[in-house]
């Protein structure tokens, strides 16, 4: 096993750390009906940088998240997180890599219905063998949810759920934060709050953040914006 997680292996400042995709191609489907979801994608997200990827539905944004997040192996090209090669990992090694290096923020939070906000964060630590990288209550405080730590998802608003989702993703100090349409279920004001929070946390936690969105309204908080169209990424 060549994967070692943790901040000590990070090499801050060098442009090879963070998330690197080189010549990534992904075809979906089989036989006659293959669709090229990602077509020679090259992308680097440095630690502390928030990169937005915009584009219409079906442009390949979800595939980009899946490949960057070790959920899907690309057909060609390489994906590296802090110099660790992701391509060629087994399913089991992928899962391990995800829990140690990658934080996901899902649409509408995707919190677990049975858990209180603070337990959502503890759950992330529990999956990774119980090691708490950050104090869950402090982290909730940092995302402005300190006073609602004991509420369950159904007692929270959409924006609040998304804040807890962000805190959960940051719980294990990931190197890469992958964010899937964080504002899809939010009104304008809440959208701004959530993306501003993402930008702050990206900088503070020095994490390489890639956010997929259709919401052009929130791009002002992002360091860079890339556009995706038919599986191709352009500036």
């Amino acid at each position, binding site marked *: 096993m060549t994967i070692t997680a943790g901040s000590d292996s990070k090499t801050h400042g060098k442009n090879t750390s963070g998330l690197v995709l080189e010549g990534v191609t992904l075809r979906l489907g089989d036989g006659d009906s293959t669709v090229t979801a990602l077509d020679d994608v090259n992308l680097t997200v440095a630690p502390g940088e928030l990169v937005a990827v915009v584009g219409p539905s079906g442009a390949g944004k979800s595939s980009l998240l*899946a490949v960057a997040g070790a*959920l899907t192996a690309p057909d060609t090209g390489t994906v590296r997180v802090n110099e660790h090669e992701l391509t060629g990992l087994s399913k089991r090694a992928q*899962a*391990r890599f995800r829990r140690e290096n990658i934080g996901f923020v899902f649409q*509408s939070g995707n919190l*677990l219905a049975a858990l209180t906000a603070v337990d959502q964060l503890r759950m992330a630590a529990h*999956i990774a063998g119980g090691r708490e990288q950050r104090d869950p209550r402090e982290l909730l405080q940092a995302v402005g949810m300190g006073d609602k730590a004991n509420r369950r998802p159904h007692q929270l608003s959409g924006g609040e759920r998304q804040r807890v989702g962000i805190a959960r993703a940051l719980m294990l100090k990931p190197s890469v934060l992958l964010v899937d349409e964080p504002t899809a279920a939010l009104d304008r004001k809440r959208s701004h709050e959530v993306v501003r929070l993402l930008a702050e946390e990206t900088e503070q936690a020095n994490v390489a953040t890639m956010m997929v969105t259709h919401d052009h309204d929130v791009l002002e908080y992002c360091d860079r914006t890339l556009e995706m169209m038919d599986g191709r990424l352009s500036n």
Partner: protein
Amino acid sequence: MFLAMRELWFARSRFGLMGSVVALISVLMVLLSGLSSGLVEDGVSGLQRLPVDGFAFDEETEVGSAFSRSLVDEEQAQQWSDRPDVEEAALFGNLLVNARSDKDVPVDLALFGVEEDSFLAPEAAEGEGLGKDDGLVVSQSAIEEGIAIGDVLSVERLGTELEVVGALEDKHTYGHVDVAYLPLHTWQEIYSGAQPGQEVGPEAYTVATAVALRAASDTEIDHAAGDSAAQTMSLTLEESFAASPGYSAETSTLNLIQAFLYAISALVIGAFFTVWTIQRKHELAVLRAMGASTGYLMRDGLAQALAILVVFCGLGLGVGIGVGSLITGTGMPFLLETSAITTAAVLLIVLGLLGALAAIVRISSVDPLTALGGRR
């Protein structure tokens, strides 16, 4: 266990509903097991408490009617007792009769005729043992039903009078009827149908229902060899239970019901966890995307099933044992046996876990990719 226990609490009404089905099945299981043990006790406890490893019946008899139809003689008993693998062999008479006590209490009795000096002779806990020609040693259950030591019982239709001289310590019954031991020659007279004072031919004193066999220590009786030498059909003690009236029918019916209950319980749990797992598919996908391994999620699910099963089976067993102890001693054949109840509890839990496992393996097919995009 982190998520499992929190989910149990969060969805407590759903889990409680399923759990109460498990609890009710456990109650039923205890009651059925009690009834089953009670019927066995009522049917064959008189045989179980004999110091016997097997019986040899006449070779023509069928198992189902062996105790009522078979007739063996002294020669066959001798053949058996000469065998090296048989420690002792003795004639054993078994006859169901109706009798009436001198206080006009009607009683049904299983008359066990044994030689007073054989290994079959019972030990009386109260009164005297076998000795008097017309002396009976009766089961403790007969005493509980109103027969007292000193009572004279007359066998209906024959008029033979027998005196209760002693009582056994435990309940000895055969075919749901109390056992009464009596000297073999008296048994032979009653069996021949002789009225009191009537002359009985000498050949009547050579027969009995079966040869009771006791194996030499640390050996098993070679039934086939013994049967061909003595021209008998021999059974082990357990096999001979099937010759008790109604025994096979009762036990097979109850065993069938119990088997169905085990299956129902496993299916209820399997069905519940199938729906539960499908309901949580999206959450499971999220957990897998977060890096939870299949093993982690399966362990969590099984822990949840185990917790539910243990709690609700325990609850059901408690209620069942409570109800059971109220039933015990009411005349209904009912006996709570620790071993039977433990077996039932273990089987319910193990089969329940298997049912849950069949549902929970679906976790391995949940694709973490489905966590991306909107809720589906």
